[in-house]
């Protein structure tokens, strides 16, 4: 009963697959959504997926470095959200919209 066993025995692979799926969801959001803020949320989703795999590896490989990495990633993600939203606010002030296409205006 391979299937049932993998249902009951949750291991590294389960977490990795879950993190892949989260990442893929986030990627789809980034590629397909129009709203800048939703895109940023999708990026957070991708980062969370990666964080999950870091923590899973950290447990199953018995290395705390993974968790340190996650700590750092969270910090940077929060910083990114802060700056990204500040940009979104600036764009919104200008165009009254948060469509990603307006960011093309920022092209140098």
């Amino acid at each position, binding site marked *: 009963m391979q299937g049932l066993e993998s249902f009951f025995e949750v291991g590294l692979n389960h977490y990795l697959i879950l993190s892949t799926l989260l990442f893929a969801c986030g990627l789809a959001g980034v590629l397909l959504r129009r709203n800048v803020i939703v895109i940023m949320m999708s990026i957070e989703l991708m980062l969370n997926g990666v964080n999950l795999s870091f923590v899973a590896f950290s447990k199953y490989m018995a290395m705390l470095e993974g968790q340190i990495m996650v700590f750092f990633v*969270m*910090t940077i993600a*929060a*910083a990114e*959200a*802060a700056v990204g*939203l*500040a940009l979104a*606010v600036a764009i919104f002030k200008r165009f009254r919209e948060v469509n990603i296409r307006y960011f093309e205006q920022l092209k140098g």
Partner: protein
Amino acid sequence: MPLGGVFFIALFVALFGAFLLWLASRLGVKVNDPVKFESYECGLPVEERKDTKISVKFYLTAILFIIFDIEVIFMYPWALTFRDFLKGGFGLFSLIAMAAFVGIFVFGLFWEIRSKALEWD
């Protein structure tokens, strides 16, 4: 593992609240009156504008909160291990590392105060 407990009680509370709401909606009488469904604005006629003006300060406060919150969070593991560092003889190192961090923190805070980002009127 307390996780099960957490989930259980969260679910229980949610169901409890939902049940009470359901019960209340069952028990209460229904009287249809169109004015009742309007927004409550102290009895004056509802005034609605396309763009409700909301100060950017709320948003600014939230951004600064995120940033400073992370800096505070970073202090937790340090606070937890400070005595271990002391025992291991790295107390000064640890103290200086955190002092530098807090120095940056304080610099940021004072910058924000000086730039009047935290001023409400």
